[in-house]
């Protein structure tokens, strides 16, 4: 399995529990594991529900809406492909459906620009609490990552 893209960016190495997330992302859907019995969402994915113990699960479609919980701006030292893109902001986004689930991602200026450069959003524009929307970027034919577009951006 490839561990990096041709450009040198790290690719996910999904485990058994995480595989469905990546499969859905490849089809442009943000889906989170949920318990079929009690309905609780859980992330990261795992074999059974920490609330009720059930091993039955489903992957529930999310709206893709969220809010910026926090962010960093990464500067070198970084891996070469990352250093080329630095400084770039990385967001931690709480999902509208469950604010305990916070997803990491790079930022883009608009839902229409899923492939914008990592430094497309100037850090001065970022505010904790700002609304964002999930977008999907195919980084290889097999792997699609979720990024976050600033709303009203």
């Amino acid at each position, binding site marked *: 399995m490839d*561990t*990096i893209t041709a450009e040198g*960016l*790290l*690719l*996910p*190495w*999904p*485990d058994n*529990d*995480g595989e469905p997330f990546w499969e859905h992302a490849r089809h442009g859907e943000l889906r989170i594991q949920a318990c079929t019995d009690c309905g609780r969402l859980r*992330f*990261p994915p795992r074999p059974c529900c*920490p609330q009720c113990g059930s091993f039955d699960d489903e992957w529930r479609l999310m709206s893709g809406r969220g809010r910026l*919980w*926090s*962010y*960093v*701006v*990464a*500067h070198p*030292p*970084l*891996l070469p492909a*990352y250093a080329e893109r630095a*400084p*770039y902001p*990385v967001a*931690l986004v709480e999902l509208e459906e469950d604010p*305990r*689930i*916070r*997803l*990491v*991602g*790079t930022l883009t200026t608009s839902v229409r620009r899923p492939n914008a450069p*990592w430094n497309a959003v100037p*850090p001065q524009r970022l505010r*904790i609490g700002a609304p964002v929307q999930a977008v999907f970027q195919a*980084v290889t034919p097999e*792997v699609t*990552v*979720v*990024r976050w577009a600033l709303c009203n951006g």
Partner: protein
Amino acid sequence: MLRDRSAIVGIGQTRFAKRLEESEKALACRAVLAALDDAGIEPHEVDALASYTMEETDEVELAKAIGAGDVTFFSRIGFGGGGSCATVAHLAMAVATGQATVGVAWRSRKRGSGRRPWTNTAQQLPTPAQWTRPFGLLRPADEIGMLARRYMHEYGATRDHLFNVALACRNRANQNPDAIMYERPLTREMYMDARWISEPLCLYDNCLETDGALACVVVSAERARDCRQRPVYVHSAAQGLPAQHHGMVNYWNDDPLTGPAWTAARQLWKTAEFGPEDVDVAQIYDAFTPLVPLSLEGYGFCGRGEGASFTEGGALELGGRLPINTGGGGLSEGYVHGFNLINEGVKQLRGVSTAQVPDAATCLVTAGEGVPTSALLLRA
């Protein structure tokens, strides 16, 4: 109960440097033999060993090199720097319960001249790294920086508060000839002008990259009375893995800003005869400056959200409300996964620190916050 039934009676270390020539194994052996010599205990008496899962010299290699006898207890603790204090805790339990008589804990690491772990692209852990690294969050500094910015947002903490932490550690290192930063003072101007690593964290918010090794020797309280050095008792010890915790990227629960320190602290104080207000000096794990205010809250020195303001007015300096990291800590003495904090706690309670707190009789030592952690309360 563990209370004062075992003691640290020997400490040893190598030199700290950006680069040491000897292998990690050789450095481990030197630190362990120095600790045994300090205790006045022969290597063949060693029958218990404890270290980190990340330690690359295993029990077999260490035991046969130093000339240990029959070893009847050996233990490894996971989660990087979160395991530091647990090495001593496991040995303390082993000698208190009769599983062994002479325990050695150690850590040897060439993190100064070796590669940075996050640069190894072939070794991405499936969980939780699949949820962070493909999304641009690459390094521990980024992972903790995320919590730091949220903490600053929620509680009005500023870079000056983080500077207070970096400065206290640097000032103590300037008193410690063994510290890497012994002759290199830090000013507020240097801190504020430093290059960013992961905003809001700058260069001086990050620990040093160090080659070095340390060790200590744990025996029962009875045996300790016959040793060469004044015993430092393990008064209380705890590990901490909170409910629904997720490791360094603890982003998926109700409150990522209350980490493993809170869990370890509850157990630590429950089994202690004294409380936070009775701690004379503390050695608080400082891979990154924000871990210190978070730990001050977790271990009960102040309330939730008060860790940053606690650092004001020289509180962490000698003569302050709670002097910390009196050898310089991971930020300024050397970063060997927190083991130097244990040995510095022992030096304080022996009364031989290079930045001695007068009449120090109690010391809190903590392991990495943010990851499953551990802590020790030491007593003279």
